[in-house]
């Protein structure tokens, strides 16, 4: 087993005919991912990297048995494509693009949860299970098969952590980019739960950053439910405070959002807080996660 991606995952690439979509399809195939279909309305009947392109998600699912979808669609068209994908019955969706309007994300999130779809993003590098496959843009060379799960808000920092672990022969079970937008499609706690249940994962690293309250809320879940060791790094200690205006956010969140508040909440839940990414290696070795 692994988290979200396994041997039965049959990937549909939305926006496959675009510049990024076609390049990333190449890398996903090269990594051994079963990319079975692409969708770009109006380009049905063509092929990209040997993968058949369809005009609609419904058609692609019917013809190829696709059961997961990764998005390389321009931000303005993501909401429409997302709803279409949910309606076509796909249960795993990875939304890579950045700069999607927050109100679109809100609609996507609620529709997906209502229909029992596990969606991650936006602004995510996707999901990679070393040796099994990847949905998204993660550069495969940094990952090794193993037993540590990584969940990251930042794309490039997830690569950094995987690379640091791989250098000391600590492999990863699955690496998930949870997305970096103010509203994301699935909260951190939901993703942690997948790793807690996964037989191939022995420990989890959370790569968080300043802002929002995902890490604080996840701390509650960790204290109640996680039996596996968890470490966390929070980026942004040195980041200048924005010239904030308005009080509504501060009123509903209280002190949540600062690096210190996140670290404190996680520590109180028994999480080992890492001062710097490089400390992930020692943590994994100490917990015999090699």
């Amino acid at each position, binding site marked *: 087993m692994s988290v979200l991606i396994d041997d039965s995952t049959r990937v549909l690439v939305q926006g496959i005919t675009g510049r*990024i979509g076609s390049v990333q399809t190449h890398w996903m195939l090269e990594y051994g991912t079963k990319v079975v279909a692409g969708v770009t309305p109006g380009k049905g009947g063509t092929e990209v990297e040997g993968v058949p392109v369809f005009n609609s998600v419904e058609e692609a699912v019917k013809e190829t048995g696709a059961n997961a979808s990764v998005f390389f669609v321009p*931000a303005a068209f993501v909401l429409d494509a997302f709803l279409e994908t949910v309606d076509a019955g796909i249960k795993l969706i990875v939304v890579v693009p*950045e*700069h*999607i*309007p*927050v*109100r679109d994300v*809100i*609609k996507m*999130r*609620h529709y997906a949860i*209502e229909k029992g779809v596990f969606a991650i993003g936006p602004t995510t*590098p996707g999901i990679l299970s070393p040796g099994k496959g990847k949905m998204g*843009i*993660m*550069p495969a*060379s*940094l990952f090794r098969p193993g037993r540590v799960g990584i969940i*990251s808000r*930042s*794309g*490039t*920092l997830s*690569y*950094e952590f995987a*690379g*640091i672990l*791989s*250098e000391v022969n600590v492999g990863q079970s699955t690496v998930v980019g949870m997305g*970096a937008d*103010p*509203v*994301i499609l699935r909260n951190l706690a939901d993703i942690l739960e997948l790793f807690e249940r996964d037989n191939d994962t022995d420990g989890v690293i959370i*790569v968080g*950053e300043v802002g*929002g*309250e*995902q890490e604080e*809320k996840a701390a509650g879940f960790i204290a109640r439910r996680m039996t596996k060791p968890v470490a966390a790094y929070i*980026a*942004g*200690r*040195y*980041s*200048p405070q924005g*010239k*904030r*205006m*308005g*009080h*509504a*956010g*501060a*009123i*509903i969140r*209280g002190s949540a959002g600062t690096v210190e508040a996140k670290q404190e909440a996680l520590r109180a839940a028994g999480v080992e807080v890492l001062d*710097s*990414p*490089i400390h992930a290696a020692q943590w994994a070795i100490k917990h015999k996660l090699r």
Partner: protein
Amino acid sequence: MRLHEHEALDIFEQMGIPVPRRGLATTMHEALHIAGEIGYPVILKAQVLVGGRGLAGGIKVAHSPDELKELAEGLLTSEIKGLPVRKILVCEKVEIQKELYLGITIDGYSGRPVIVVSTEGGVLIEETAKNAPEKIASIHIDPSFGYYPYKSRSLLRRLGLEQKIISAWSDVISQLYTISIRYEALIAEINPLVVLPNGGLLAVDAVLEIDDSAISRIHLPLPDRFERMENPLERRGREIGVTYVDLDGDIGLISSGAGLGMASMDIIAKNMRPANFLETGGGITADLLYRCMDLVLMKPNIRAIFINVYGGINPIHEGAKGVARYIKEHKVKIPIVAKALGNRQEETWEILRSAGVHVVTETATEKAIERLYELVGTNRE
């Protein structure tokens, strides 16, 4: 994009929210003229995009033309939290019976809009939220069904208010909610919403922050978003399509990804001081990194540059060509350390090395910054 108070007040007024009589002045003489039409006393409010403006001295009351001249002159030559005051809003001063608070924002965790109200509005609202949470009430809006006015009425009933004020206030909430939808607002706020002696309400302040990702589809007149960026380097960053934040150190930074950029800053700051934060996002090209080099080196005191990029979505070998071209054309002499990993990394290293860049091939950013530290030495200006 954050709007100035005067811009937000204009929008609120168009939507039917009661706002004070007012005028915008860029000179003392304009302020004098506006005050003459409104009648004394008037309130002068610096139009700067910072929070806590009142406590920082950006709001004054003028009772006479002489006092106004002095205060307007003072404000228009001052800075509030480092930002120059170019415009002041001259407003009628009303008699205040009570100050209320109304804010609409997005609750990021639950992914729903939330309306927040309080009977204790004013500058200390966040203190009230901590110390007297019973004076704050909030309600989430179900995104599948949207907002209906009964939501506001039931919210306000929880504060134990009379029906008369509930009716007037829920109208304002409905209007502000409509604004938050039409303008794709991340924050829409009135603080304080003033209760007048006749029982009427008046929005004497206005905050509106628009979702940058939605600006292109808002078909309503909006102010220019570049013009309002006060820092020329940050404005240049926006123009070339990267996020640049000006800091006070001397180590330049170019990173792909906000998290990696923040982690890089955190590590640099242990022994040195970052001059900037720069995050390219997923759109690296040779030209973009050429322009990033130019932007980072606009500050004259840069002692070294750290480039930290990953080739996932970004073609880093293309980016490397831009860096190399910049170094060659501008004969850059300061040390440049680069960590560039991922797709086509060997090709990238080759291009960078031949341009004289110190390439670090280990994964940990810490290792690359150690190398940078060795190169710039410990003597700091």
